[in-house]
């Protein structure tokens, strides 16, 4: 039996998975699916024809060297060791490094640049928090074991059970997560900024400034919610893409950061973004220590420049700035807006991934690799930045992302 396996699906990175042969324990349904055997890309391909790894790597290096400004995108579902090579590669070819955050929690980074962030590890949810708020997120479907492992039912040393936690859910629709809530507040889509601001007014003693209705909540509802927050001994707001993907984006996140700053003048409160992929945090952290910034980094001038909206993948593609793309451990063809996918179809695309997906369908070079956390090991960062080492639990004939990227980098430099 192999113990302490880290699940490589969501930002929970649950590290208590056990495997006895093919039988896994402690997995959620999505985790079970993650570890189940499924269709793979059989062999490397160039222009739809199966080729050797050497040929595919050669062609990939050629594309990157010939391109004026290739986009190197993805990274959130691989290990830091591969990500580091990706940043080096982007630097050496004078390309753009961008990662999945730019289509999910990048507004959180932008808000952090303005305001910082008051955070903590998930252990604070487990051990201390007596008020837990889920705002614009749906962990029951996106981070299934979050409530049991960390935030709702977990047994901590100060907060010892579900009964000792007040659980609040705020969303634009009733989600399965709302079933866990002590209190559920339904707000109007796109109203987060206003609701956070109204709550700040009440928390800071300026109740009179709040109108009778804000974002679908009555003043009394807002007051009761503010009351819950203020009564917390140690409160925690988890927020998701409901906040970052809606109108206002980083302004919404700034508003909730400021709310939490204000709350810390009355009691203790922290904030935690519900990061999606198991290593989306690493794809920002590695870039920050290697190049100074988390995402949207352009190296075309030989040094790193950070400019969201300019060097973020979607905009760069739509503007036609990138004349080639390398996609690692991600599927932008499925997850980018249509216009960006159109641009991707126009340029040479290299894909490095274990599984066939929509990006495979438009890629010129496809290089299949081992599945991180199942067939290849390495370091990943959980949603709260806690580093974990993912394991190799099955043998595989596929090379790892690291091995492939090392070879491409070698060819690009020489």
């Amino acid at each position, binding site marked *: 039996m192999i113990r302490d396996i880290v699940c490589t699906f969501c930002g929970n990175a649950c590290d208590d998975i056990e495997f006895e042969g093919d039988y896994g324990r402690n997995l959620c349904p999505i985790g079970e699916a993650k570890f189940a055997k499924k269709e793979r890309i059989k062999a490397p391909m160039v222009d739809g024809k199966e080729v050797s790894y050497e040929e595919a790597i050669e062609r990939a290096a050629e594309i990157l060297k010939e391109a004026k400004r290739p986009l190197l995108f993805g990274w959130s579902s691989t290990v830091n060791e591969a990500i580091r090579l990706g940043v080096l590669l982007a630097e*050496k070819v004078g390309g753009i490094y961008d990662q999945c955050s730019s289509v999910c929690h990048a507004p959180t980074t932008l808000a952090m*640049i303005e305001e910082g962030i008051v955070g903590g590890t998930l252990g604070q949810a487990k051990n201390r928090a007596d008020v837990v708020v889920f705002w614009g997120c749906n962990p029951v479907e996106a981070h299934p074991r979050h409530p049991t492992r960390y935030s709702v039912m977990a047994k901590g040393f100060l907060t010892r059970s579900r009964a000792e936690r007040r659980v609040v859910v705020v969303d634009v629709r009733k989600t399965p997560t709302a079933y866990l809530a002590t209190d559920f507040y339904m707000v109007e889509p796109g109203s987060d900024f206003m609701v956070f601001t109204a709550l700040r007014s009440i928390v800071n003693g300026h109740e009179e400034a709040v109108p009778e209705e804000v974002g679908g909540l009555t003043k009394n509802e807002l007051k009761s919610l503010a009351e819950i927050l203020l009564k917390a001994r140690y409160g925690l707001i988890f927020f998701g893409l409901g906040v970052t993907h809606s109108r206002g984006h980083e302004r919404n996140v700034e508003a909730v950061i400021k709310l939490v700053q204000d709350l810390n003048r009355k009691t203790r409160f922290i904030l935690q973004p519900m990061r999606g992929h198991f290593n989306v945090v690493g794809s920002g952290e590695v870039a920050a220590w290697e190049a100074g910034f988390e995402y949207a980094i352009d190296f075309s001038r030989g040094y790193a420049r950070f400019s969201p909206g300019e060097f973020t993948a979607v905009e760069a593609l739509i503007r036609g700035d990138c004349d080639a793309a390398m996609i690692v451990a991600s599927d932008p063809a499925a997850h980018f807006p249509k216009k960006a996918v159109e641009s991707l179809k126009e340029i040479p695309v290299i894909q490095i991934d274990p599984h066939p997906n929509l990006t495979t369908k438009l890629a010129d070079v496809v290089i299949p690799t081992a599945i991180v956390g199942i067939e290849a090991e390495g370091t990943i960062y959980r949603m709260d930045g806690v580093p974990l080492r993912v394991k190799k639990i099955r043998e595989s004939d596929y090379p790892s992302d690291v091995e492939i990227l090392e070879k491409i980098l070698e060819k690009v430099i020489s």
Partner: protein
Amino acid sequence: MSVIYIKGGIVVDPTQGIDGEIMDIFVKDGKIVEESGAGKADTVIDAKGMTVVAGGIDIHAHIAGPKINAGRAMRPEDMKYARNKSGPLRCAMGRVLMTCPAIGYEYARMGYTTAIEPATPALYAIHTHEELDSIPMVDKAVLPLFGNWHLTFKFAAEGDIEKMKAFIAWAIERSKGFGVKVVNPGGVEAWKYGRNVHSLDERIPGFEATPAEVLSTLIKASIELNLPHKVHVHCNNLGVPGSAETTAETIKLAEKIGASKDGRESLHITHIQFNAYTGEKWRDMGSGAEELSKLVNRTPVTVDMGQPIFGHTTTMTADGPFEFALHKLFKSKWINKDVEIETGGGIVPITYRAKSPVNAVQWATGLEFGLLVDADKVVISTDYPNGGPFVEYPYIMTLLMSRKFREKEIEEKGVNSYIEKATSLPSLDVERTFYEIVKMTRSTPAKILGLENKGTLKVGADADITIYPFDCRNVSPEDYEVLLKGLRSVAYTIKDGEIVVKDGEIAKEVWGRTFWVNAVKGATQEIIEEDLNEVFRYYTVSRGNYGVREEWIRRPETIAIEE
């Protein structure tokens, strides 16, 4: 590995009492060797008229891990400064905060060859080692944080030195760390309740222990474990008027316990400047450096300066409540992180202004320590990035060596005249000799860290060498400009026997070692098994996933402590 002869240089090596003698130094296979054992030279450096010293050692710089990296992400305005374009070397970014390649290159260009990251949550040690592994050029090590760990409180309350020893050994093995760091003992735990602790004898919320008990048990356990580097403490009450008293009390704890078995000091007070203010409010704040320096000089304690540099920087410390106070004071952006049941931390940007009376006192206080504490007991530091960039060490060295330069800086920068009332700096005529500066940047930190092959040019030592392009015997404090220029522009840096810097430019990218201390043989590990299993019920990672394996580190080097 090649053989290098360094011919005819003016050698300064306090570990051998050599002060400006013309000598040849021989390097082979990364070590300093006798002439007879060197063999034929591959490279001969004509060091005539140049000064040859050991490579510099930074005992306290936050260069790697979750804190500095969160700081980078929060401050693109600081990171956008390009130091080096991508080419044969990496692109290097950052003005005060820097990327890993920039940190390595700048240390080497300054003649520094070793740097210690002084604070990582053990939980985040994997991350910290990843960043250390991305810093080229220097040797490094990391100190895990102990001062707010629940198990530390438990063993301190029980006064159980044996368990504390076992716990220290376990934690530094798991984090591949080098020693024991303590930050605001008890205060970071109290911050999780929205509070702080304000004296050494206050009870820590939720526990029976006091900060004094935490410190004393950790110091005693570190002595008994024979750790090469003893307890490295960021005192309680940092950064506020009245902190000098807390620091004095902390020093007296070590005085009571006594020196290490090998005679070395038993406590290192880090960035003492930040913890050395008298007065009750900011209005009557003053420097406690004179009194504290006297105390340090007669007790088994060492210090580093924590010198502020006028200009902007980013503060970052495990001292969560202090960072919250800064955020409230400056209304600036603020990162906080509460880390499981072991520590916490915060990050806030700051600007040190010469015209601000408080900042002026801080500046003067740091220099007072640099001038008044024995050169065998004080190390130059800025507590990077808290006081400012480490690239300003040559500037600090020059300030310490030249009163005239201090006077010029006070005049030109318009340093607030409140320092005349609140500090002794303006009246101090002490001028450090070059020999003393070499101690404060080489032999003293090496001794405090217990790194016998560092900070020295003795035969057998690591061939980490700085060659300055001037004759140290001929520089006078009057010619501070010559001095500053010379200290800033290193002729050669040699790392592990290879020339890595020539004429101030990186000649070769190399990768240093990461030292870690294995002390598990020094304590019975079994006695804390149950305690560990109990606390891991309150972690969100399994015990089996906690910590760093040696094979995950680029070039680990174990310092094994025998029973």
